[in-house]
């Protein structure tokens, strides 16, 4: 009887331990993290480490796309958009045991906005000249006032990991689920469970479930996939369509397609006045009919099917439908319609002669498309465009350049005609789009750094972008940004080709996996990821 009781107790313990999880999660970083200082993060690997170690005042739930309270239980924005007051959780401790208080929030924000540090995270908050003011009105209450209104102020705190003002080891004292336990340059970063992490699950068990995470630094994607298939690593947060299919066929249940992501592939024509391209070509590129005709002459469904193995969809416009709140639902995907493309071109005086498209001055339509060398996906897309455009008599020369040469051409010399590149959107809505859509912006790629908007529609976009940025009414902001999307769709300064799907590969042994379309796709709920009972007991 006694031995049965002991056996029962052991079994119960095993089941609890299994449900609790434990164990180590392993996956790869694709480059060396440049820093572990959360304020100075500006590269992907460092951002991933910050995501898993940092404690944040509020966090964007990657699944619901809603902001959720974390270290701050509540917050209040002022009507002028400059001030935000936080009510903080009580009784929290950093991983090194120091107490969390409002002073830490004030310290973090002062450091973030220190002009000498040139923090990329801090740049998002810089909207005017002047100093940031912080007012600590109690151990758990802090008010922050920015020198000028900041659009979507609260959502920007999703990137701000709170530092300890008192701890002597600033970067190692964290409020997130894991802390950095070990790092060997070029080899790995080891994160261990933060014993002072404040969250508990619905049953009251402390989070995170995992004991540790080992991030192997592995640049080679082939090697990463091989290690995944051999079970040496547990997940690959972002995979391309080829690897996705391979994971799907070799490890049932390991490939996850969360649907269309925020990331577009796009091309644009060089409309810059000071570029050394012939004037007649600039005139083509500045014609809305020409740009829309190119958009409609490219079979983007074929592109999604062949290049992305069906794991992408023809893009609608500047935002992906994955952005649930901000996407303009009245817009429709432009169809593949070469006949309509020819009609649009005819309106501008283009005509076909011996299978070639000729402009009104007798120039045969031929242009080059530059893209980065070594990117097979984009090279394939360009090759498909080459064939599609040849059907309406346009000759496309595909030129692959090494990346520094490409950047030199599209940002400094402007010696190019069209460019094909992709974007990785980390944030929702228009905030990250300001530096692209304002005509004065350096990243207004088709015609950057304009002193005055050169077209009426660009002036209208400038007005709308500024209006939405200074408005605190989400409905009004949405209306303004919907109109921006509409203009971008009509004028086609960017030709949006496809939106990739959010693809990942995850070991079936991992529990609580809920892939999202916002990065990180898989480990956005890292504190709740768990190994199953079998792997935990191992």
């Amino acid at each position: 009887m006694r031995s049965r009781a002991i056996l029962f107790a052991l079994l119960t313990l095993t089941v609890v331990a299994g449900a609790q999880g434990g164990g180590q999660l392993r996956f790869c970083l694709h480059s060396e993290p440049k820093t572990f200082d959360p304020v100075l993060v500006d590269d992907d690997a460092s951002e991933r480490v910050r995501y898993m170690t940092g404690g944040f005042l509020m966090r964007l739930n990657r699944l619901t796309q809603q902001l959720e309270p974390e270290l701050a239980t509540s917050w209040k924005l002022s009507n002028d958009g400059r001030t935000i007051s936080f009510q903080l959780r009580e009784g929290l401790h950093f991983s090194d045991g120091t107490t969390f208080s409002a002073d830490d929030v004030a310290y973090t924000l002062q450091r973030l906005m220190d002009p000498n540090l040139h923090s990329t995270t801090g740049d998002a908050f810089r909207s005017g000249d002047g100093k940031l003011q912080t007012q600590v009105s109690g151990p758990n209450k802090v008010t922050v006032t920015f020198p000028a209104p900041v659009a979507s102020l609260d959502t920007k705190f999703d990137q701000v990991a709170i530092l300890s003002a008192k701890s002597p080891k600033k970067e190692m004292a964290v409020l997130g689920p894991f802390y950095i336990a070990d790092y060997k340059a070029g080899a790995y970063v080891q994160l261990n469970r933060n014993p002072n992490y404040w969250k508990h699950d619905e049953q009251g068990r402390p989070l995170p479930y995992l004991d540790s995470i080992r991030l192997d630094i592995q640049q080679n994607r082939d090697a990463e996939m091989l290690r995944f298939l051999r079970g040496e690593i547990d997940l690959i947060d972002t995979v391309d369509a080829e690897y996705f299919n391979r994971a799907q066929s070799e490890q049932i249940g390991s490939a996850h397609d969360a649907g269309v992501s925020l990331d577009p592939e796009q091309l644009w024509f060089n409309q810059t006045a000071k570029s050394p391209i012939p004037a007649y070509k600039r005139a083509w590129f500045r014609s809305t009919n020409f740009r829309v005709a190119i958009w409609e002459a490219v079979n983007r469904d074929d592109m999604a099917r062949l290049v992305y193995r069906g794991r992408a969809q023809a893009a609608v416009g500047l935002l992906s439908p994955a952005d649930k709140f901000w996407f303009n639902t009245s817009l429709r995907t432009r169809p593949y319609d070469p006949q309509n493309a020819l009609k649009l071109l005819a309106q501008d005086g283009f005509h076909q002669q011996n299978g070639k498209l000729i402009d009104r001055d007798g120039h045969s339509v031929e242009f080059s498309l530059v893209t980065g060398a070594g990117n097979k996906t984009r090279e394939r897309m360009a090759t498909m465009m080459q064939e599609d455009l040849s059907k309406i008599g346009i000759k496309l020369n595909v030129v692959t350049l090494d990346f520094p040469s490409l950047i030199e051409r599209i940002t400094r010399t402007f010696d190019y005609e069209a460019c094909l590149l992709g974007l990785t959107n980390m944030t929702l809505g228009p905030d990250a789009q300001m530096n692209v859509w304002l005509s004065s912006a350096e990243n207004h790629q088709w015609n950057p750094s304009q002193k005055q908007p050169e077209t009426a529609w660009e002036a209208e976009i400038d007005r709308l972008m500024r209006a939405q940025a200074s408005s605190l009414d989400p409905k009004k902001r949405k209306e303004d940004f919907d109109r921006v999307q509409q203009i971008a769709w009509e004028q086609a300064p960017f030709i949006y080709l496809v939106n990739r799907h959010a693809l990942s590969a995850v070991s079936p042994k991992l529990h609580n996996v809920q892939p999202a379309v916002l990065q990180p796709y898989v480990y956005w709920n890292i504190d709740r990821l768990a190994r199953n009972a079998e792997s935990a007991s191992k």
Partner: protein
Amino acid sequence: MRWLRYISIGILATVFLASLFAGTLAPAPYAKQFREEPDAAPTRQHWLGTDDLGRDRFSRVLYGTRISLLLAPAAAFLAAALAGILGGVAGYLGGWTERSLMAAADLVLSLPWLFLLLAVRALLPLNVEPLQSVTITFLILGCLGWAAGARVVCAGAGALRNSDFALQARALGCSEARLLLRHLAPNLRPLLLAQFWISVPVFILAEANLGILGLGVSEPLPSWGSLLRELEGLTAISGKPWVFVPLLLLIVSVTAFQVLLVDQEMPS
């Protein structure tokens, strides 16, 4: 080893002829995309299947072979000719001419050729025909490939300049130009031929390397380099042995060139 030489000649002749008659032998245009049949396995219509855009792989291999096997020897000829002229003049004249030309050769040899090629490719105009682009690539390869050969030729010419027969020719009143062209140049021919045969596979591989980096021949024109890019990635090498044909062709052709080269160097 004569039989090995005959086999090599046979292989190279077959490959050359097949590529020369690519227009007749290819079942489809090399750029034609059969979009309903991407990544297809070999069929009666597509002997080596199709690539991921549905292009007939056999046709692309034939045209790619034509590009790589015709332009690589042309570039090798250019490199050998430059090496012969510059190395021969340097070795024959000696003195400051030899020192300056060999210093120039050392400078070219010390340049990281891959980065130099990248830089030169980046400076080329964007709107060039794919065929022009590949010709320029091989032209650059040829222009950069003379230095090592020139050093060898220079040493050979230097030895011949002071040889007994050259001394006797001078004593008989032979002019310097006649001596150089009629007596020394024929004796340098084996060296130049060896340089040519060495350069052919080197240039084929150089173009393949550029192709793997995405900087070789522009789409849609195929070359061995661009065809080898299909082998990038794990998925390419699983269950599709026919995608290895361009690699096999490259290995066989380069080996055949090497066999001929060894045969050239062996004393008869």
